[in-house]
C-alpha cells in the first residue's frame, strides 16, 4: 500500500504552470498543471543539462525546458525526438481537489542525481 502525501490544492498551481516540491533528500519535484486540470509530477531536472523544468513554459501535455528549450512530455518524462533522454516521473493522485504524491517515491526515487552547480562553487568542485 502506498502512502499518499498531500502537497497542495490543484488551484495552488497556476494553469499551464507549475510549483516546486521540496524533498527531504534529493532534487526537488516539479508538479505541473495543464489547462484541463491535469496534474503531472517530474523530477525538476531536464535530462539534457539539468535545467529546472518547473520554470518552463507548459503547453498541451509538455513542458519546454527553460535552459535549451528541450520539450519534455509531462506524462512520461521523456524528451521529444530527435532529442533523447528521460527524467524521473512521479505518481500523482488528485482527490477532492488536492494533489498527492507517493511518500515512498518521494523518499526513494532519483536520490543519486546531483544538482547542477555553477559559479565559484563549480570551480571549487573541479579544483578539489
Amino acid at each position, binding site marked *: 500500500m502506498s502512502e499518499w502525501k*498531500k502537497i497542495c490544492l490543484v488551484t495552488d498551481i497556476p494553469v499551464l*504552470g507549475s510549483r516546486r516540491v521540496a524533498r527531504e533528500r534529493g532534487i526537488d519535484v516539479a508538479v505541473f498543471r495543464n489547462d484541463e486540470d491535469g496534474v503531472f509530477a517530474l523530477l525538476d531536472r531536464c535530462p539534457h543539462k539539468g535545467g529546472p523544468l518547473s520554470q518552463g*513554459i507548459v*503547453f498541451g501535455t509538455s513542458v*519546454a525546458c*527553460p535552459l535549451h528549450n528541450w520539450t519534455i512530455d509531462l506524462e512520461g518524462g521523456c524528451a521529444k525526438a530527435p532529442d533523447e533522454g528521460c527524467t524521473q516521473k512521479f505518481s500523482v493522485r488528485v482527490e477532492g481537489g488536492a494533489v498527492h504524491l507517493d511518500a515512498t517515491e518521494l523518499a526513494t526515487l532519483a536520490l543519486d542525481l546531483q*544538482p547542477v552547480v*555553477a559559479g565559484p562553487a563549480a570551480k571549487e568542485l573541479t579544483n578539489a
Partner: protein
Amino acid sequence: MKKMKLVMVGNGMAGVRTIEELLKIAPDLYDITVFGAEPHPNYNRIMLSPVLAGEQTVDEIVLNSWAWYADNRIALHAGKKVVEVDRVKRIVRAVDAQGAATEAPYDRLLVCTGSNPFMLPVPGNDLQGVIAYRDIADTGYMIETARTHRNAVVIGGGLLGLEAANGLMLRGMNVTVVHVMPWLMERQLDDVAGKLLQKSLEDRGLKFLIGAQTQELTGNEEGRVKSIKFKDGSEVATDLVVMAVGIRPNTQLAESMRLHCNRGIVVNDTMQTVTDARIYSVGECAAHRGIAYGLVAPLFEQAKVAANHLAQFGIGRYSGSLTSTKLKVTGIDLFSAGEFMGGEGTEEIVMSDPFGGVYKKLVIKDDKLVGACLYGDTVDGSYYFKLLRDGRSVSDIRDKLIFGESNLGDAGHEGQNKAALMADDAEVCGCNGVNKGTICKAIKEKGLFTLDEVRKHTKASASCGSCTGLVEQILMFTAGGDYSATPKLKAMCACTDHGHQAVRDAIRANKLLSISDVFKFMEWKTPNGCASCRPAVNYYLISTWPKQAKDDPQSRFINERSHANIQKDGTYSVIPRMWGGETTASELRRIADAVDKYKIPTVKVTGGQRIDLLGVKKEDLQNVWKDIGMPSGHAYAKALRTVKTCVGSEWCRMGTQDSTQMGKDLERAMWRMYAPHKVKFAVSGCPRNCAESGIKDVGIIGVDSGWEMYIAGNGGIKTEVAHFFTKLKTAAEVLEYTGAFCELYRQEGWYLERTVHYVNRVGLDYVKKKILEDHEGRKALWEQLQFALDGEPDPWFDFKEAAVDTRQFEKLTPA
C-alpha cells in the same frame, strides 16, 4: 477497421519522401505497396556523381534500407516494372526481369515514375557504349568502362554532363565534353561565369568542344561506338558516349492509363492528377502549373502536400517553387537563382576577379533583387536567395549588397566561409560545439535533406544562426541537390500555418484581445500553442492593445515571469537599474549588504554599466529586490535594457553635450518598454563615442551643434554598425525621434526580431519615411508609446499590477 490500400509506382526520392511524410502523420491509415523498376531500395540519385567520382559508395547513398521498408510494413517489389494499371478495377500489374507478373489492388495510387534521359536522335545512338546518365546501372557501366577503356565523350555541358565528365576524368579517362550552346551550363550561368567554369575544368584536364553539333556516332565491327562525328566534318575517337542533354518526364505508363499529360502528368495544387482524384503524382514526372521540377527541394514540398491529402487532412497546397542551383564538383563553387541573365529593365551589380577565380553578379529590377549568379565564392547564395524570395527593396543596402551578408562581424566559426575546405574536426557551430564531421555523419546516417532537419538533429546553426551558410554548404556537399526549401511564407511554428505578419495583422484588424481569441480566430492546430508561439502572441497582444489586452505571465519565458535571469544551475541573476549608468554610495551600500545577507556568490559589472548579482536563489528574489530598493533593470526581458552613457560635458574636457543627462532622460522616458526583442541605447557626448553608440539599437552621438541619431546597430552575434538616421538639435527631439522609432518597432517588429533585422526586413527608407518625413505620424507614435508606458508597474515592487504570481517563489513541502 480495414485499412485502405496505397500503391506507389516508382521507388524514387520524391515518392518515398511522400510515404515518409505520410507515415509521420497517419501511420496506420494504409497498407502500402511499392513497385520499383530498379533492383535497389530508394537511394539518393543526386549523389550518383560523387559515386562516379569515387568519393562515395552506392551503399552510402542509400536513403531507405531494405529494413526500413520491412519495419514500416511496406511491401516492396524492387526490380518489378509496372506495365499496366486498370483504373476501373483499380489494379496495378507489374512484371519482373523473368517476366513473372505481380498484381496489387489500390484505393489510392501514387505515380512517381520520374523522368527519362533524352537521347539525341542521331544515327548510332543505339550502339554499345552509348548510354545516358540516370541510375545506378549507368553509373556502374561508366565505372566499368573507365577500367577497360581510354576515351570518353560526354554530350551536354549542363549540370549532369559536367558531373559525369568530372567523374570519368577522376576515374582516369580522357574526357571531351561536347556542348552545342555558346557556354557551359547556359541555363544556370551567364557567359562570364560559364567561361570561368570552363577554364577551371580545363585546368583539371577536361577538354571542351563548344558549339559543336553532333551528326552521328560510328561503331566498330563489334557494334561498339568508336567515334563521334560533327556537322563541320570533324571527328573525335571515343570508347564511351554519355548523353546528358536533358530529361523528359516519364509519362509512358500514365499515358497508357489515359491520364492527362502535357510535358508531365498534369496535377493540381493538391498533387492529384486532374484526370482521376484517386491518383496522385509527385516528382519529376508531374507537371504542376506547366512545370515539371527536376530539383529535390520542390519535390519534397510536393511530397509534403501529397502526404497531407493522402492522410485525409486536406489542408496543404503546393503553389510552385522558386529554385536555385549549385554544382556538385568538389572544389568548384557556383550558385545561381532567378533571372541571373539580366535583360531589359534590369540593372546589374558585378564583381569580377577572374584571376582570383571569383565572380558575382546580382540582377536588380525595380529596386528588388531578381537574380544572382555566383562563381568561386557562394557562401552568400542562401542570403541572396532569401532576398530574392522575400522580394524586399534593396535600395538601402545596395552599396553593400555585392559583399554579401557574411563579410563583416561574423563570429563563432573562425571566419570560415568555405565549408568544403574545412577539416572534419573543424568547428562549424560555435554556439553548440558542432564540428563538420558530426554534421556530415548526421546527414548521411539520418538521411537529412533540409536545413531545418540538420538543425533539429545536430543543433548546428540552431542558436545564433551565423553559421547557417556553412551548414547549407555542408548539406549541399553531403546530401546534394538544392536544400533551400523554405517556403516563402514561414509559419510561426508548427502550431499554425500563419506567419508572424498575418498574426499581427489579424490581432489589429479584428481587435483580438487574448491568446485564446487569437488561437480560435486563426484556427491554431494545438489547444494552447507551444513555447515559441505563446510568448510571441502574448507580446503582439500587449503591444497592439496596450491597457486593453491582458498580459499572460504563463505565456512568457521564465525570465519575464520571475523578473530575473535564469542561470545554468537554476538560480537567478539580479541587475538593478542604474539610470544612465550612474550610481551612489547609498545604492552601492545596499547592494553590498544584500550580497552579504543572501550569500550571493558573484558580483559582476556588466557591459551595460550596471551591476549583476549572480546566483540568487529563487526563494530570495523578492527580498533581494526589496533590500536593494532600486528599480528593475529589465536585464531579463525583451524590453529596454541599459542606456549606456559616457561622462559627457559635465566633466569631460572633450565633451560637447551632456550625454549622461540625455541618457538618463531617455531611460526614464522609456524604461518598462516591452519590445519584440531586447533594446539597448547609448549616448556619447562627442564623436569619440566612448559609449559605443554605433552598435546599439538607438545610438546618440553629441556634436557641437546638437545630436546625431543612429539606429539598428547590434554588437551581438553579428556585429552590425548602426545606420546614420538623422541629425537633431534638441534633447526633446532626441526623445521624440527615439520614442517614435521604438514604437514603430514595437508595433511592426516580429517577436525575437532585433531592430537590425526589423530594419533589414522593411528597409531603412521605409523607416525614414515613417519617422523623418511623416511629422504627424512621428508625433502620434511617440504619443502612443507614452500612453502605453504611462503608469506601467515596476515588476520588482508592484506585484499585483505587473501580474507577478508570487507563489512561484515559495517551495511546497509534503504534508
